[in-house]
């Protein structure tokens, strides 16, 4: 037991003193989370800028109450009604500096919008249409027969942070697992520590156990930091019911990715080669598994490929338990699958394992 603890301590110290390793396992994925979290924070359609050329009766004659209601969705810039001003307004729309131009000609309200952003042009058309309809209705002098009251429901699951946190955390755990075991194996082989341990009265179980232990502690640290940062009010992650199920998932994921690292470390002769091979495995897998962005719109074959990637299953199970209120039902099969994956790869790695660098 003491041998096991001291070996774990030696590994942990070696890892903690390796600035590059600390950066790539803890800081680097966190940077992605903070960056993506900030970038995709407000993904909704914001205010639309429209240019009003000359006087437009329906807009100018809008009651103050209605005008106040539009303040959050419509920004109206007024210009004079000259032909030059109209050309300038249309040019602005063409360049994307304004979303639409509106003017009145022969009693008709004319709207010119850019076709580039369909969501925005739809919004502008809808808003303008309702303004015109309300003006028409007012012109009849009758109170409106029907009124539509709308209100937005904030759907928590669609907030990008709810998606980014589990995905990027899965990626971070995967990197930690693959690099942790691959580097360790290659470096110990090169430095002949493997041989030296063979000649010490210590069981292989203690050595492997110590490495797994250190990796698990790293993975839990990643998880804690990720969840803490994402839960900051700025990012606003909301965890659902059995979110703690991410912990056993992290354990199984770590084992699965350490087994990939073992395989990489069995083939790679140098740390540089191990680094290259590990990146070659991790980076495409991260993209294909939808850890950075959803695969909903990806071609079918990519989604088929992703079904075979352990990271895809880890990331989506993490999302399910962390932010979608799922529980054991989704987590258990994934845990089983990851453990099976780990067992198979470890068995292969054991067959190609080499003691010496030569």
């Amino acid at each position, binding site marked *: 037991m003491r041998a096991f603890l001291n070996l774990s301590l*030696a590994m942990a110290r070696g890892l903690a003193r390796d600035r590059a390793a600390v950066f790539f396992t803890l800081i680097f994925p966190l940077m992605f989370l903070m960056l993506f979290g900030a970038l995709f924070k407000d993904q909704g359609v914001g205010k639309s800028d429209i240019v009003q050329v000359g006087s437009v009766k329906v807009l100018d004659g809008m009651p103050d109450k209605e005008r106040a209601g539009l303040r959050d969705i419509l920004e109206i810039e007024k210009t004079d009604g000259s032909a030059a001003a109209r050309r300038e307004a249309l040019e602005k729309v063409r360049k994307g500096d304004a979303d639409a131009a509106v003017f009145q000609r022969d009693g008709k309200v004319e709207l010119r919008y850019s076709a580039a952003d369909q969501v925005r042009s739809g919004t502008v058309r809808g808003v303008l249409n309702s303004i015109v309809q309300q003006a028409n209705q007012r012109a009849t002098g009758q109170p409106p027969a029907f009124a539509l009251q709308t209100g937005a429901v904030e759907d928590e699951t669609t907030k990008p942070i709810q998606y980014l946190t589990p995905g990027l955390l899965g990626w971070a755990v995967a990197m930690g697992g693959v690099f942790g075991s691959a580097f360790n194996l290659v470096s110990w082989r090169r430095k*002949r520590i493997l041989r*030296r341990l063979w000649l010490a009265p210590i069981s292989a179980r203690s050595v492997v156990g110590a490495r797994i232990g250190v990796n698990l502690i790293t993975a839990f640290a990643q998880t804690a930091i990720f969840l803490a940062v994402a839960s900051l009010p700025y990012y606003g992650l909301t965890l659902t019911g059995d979110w703690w199920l991410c912990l056993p998932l992290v354990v199984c994921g770590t084992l699965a990715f350490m087994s990939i690292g073992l395989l990489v470390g069995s083939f790679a002769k140098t740390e540089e080669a191990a680094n290259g091979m590990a990146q070659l495995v991790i980076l495409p897998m991260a993209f294909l598994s939808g850890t950075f962005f959803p695969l909903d719109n990806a071609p079918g074959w990519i989604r088929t490929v992703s079904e075979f990637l352990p990271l895809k299953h880890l990331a989506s199970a993490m999302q399910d338990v962390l932010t979608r209120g799922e529980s054991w039902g989704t987590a258990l099969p994934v845990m089983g699958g990851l453990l099976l994956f780990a067992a198979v790869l470890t068995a292969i790695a054991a067959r190609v394992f080499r003691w010496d660098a030569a």
Partner: protein
Amino acid sequence: MSNAITADGLRKRYGETQAVDGVSLEVQRGEFYGILGPNGAGKTTTMELLEGLREPDEGTAHLLGTPSWPRDPALLRRIGVQLQASAFFERLTAREQIRTFAALYGIEESHADGMLETVGLAEKADTREDKLSGGQAQRLSIACALVHDPELVFLDEPTTGLDPQARRNLWDLLRTINSSGRTVVLTTHYMDEAETLCDRVAVMDHGKVLRVGPPRSLVQELEVDTLEDVFLQLTGREYRE
């Protein structure tokens, strides 16, 4: 009491190369024994077969009366091995290294610190492994091999790459170890080293033991001046790998 080492007909082949080709030797308890030979003679492989690091294709090696293959943790507690390259844990200080090794053998930390002092590294205790000089690293790796007070110690080229001062200091250390009753087996390229330290040497080439005996008797037997002459007469003068 059984010999420190009894090897009988050891053979090991790597692909086309017959690295060790029928090595038999006996080392008495308390003896200082040297294995000499040019590069590629099979010294290191012979050491590894003796230590039980590799399985011999043929033959057996007994250490302190116990076969060294298959791996036997009880035997491993009684032998100490210094590998050729410095097998240190990354980024640990000298003290952390030796304490880790001590823990592998269930040895107290205070004893580990004492061993650091024995090899004259007490002042370097907080220096990281990659910041130690060549001589300091060699002394640390020897300390790590000795931390559990083994009865039998294997040292693979312990003085290679050291300056004369470090080499002489290391010799003193090795003599001390040997005079405390431990059996020491070392490989070396330096004939003066073998001549001063070893009770007996085995000269190897092409995976075979060519001659065994005390350095002085070998010099007399072949009617030459030094052990180096013995070595060259036995192994020839062509360049090796």
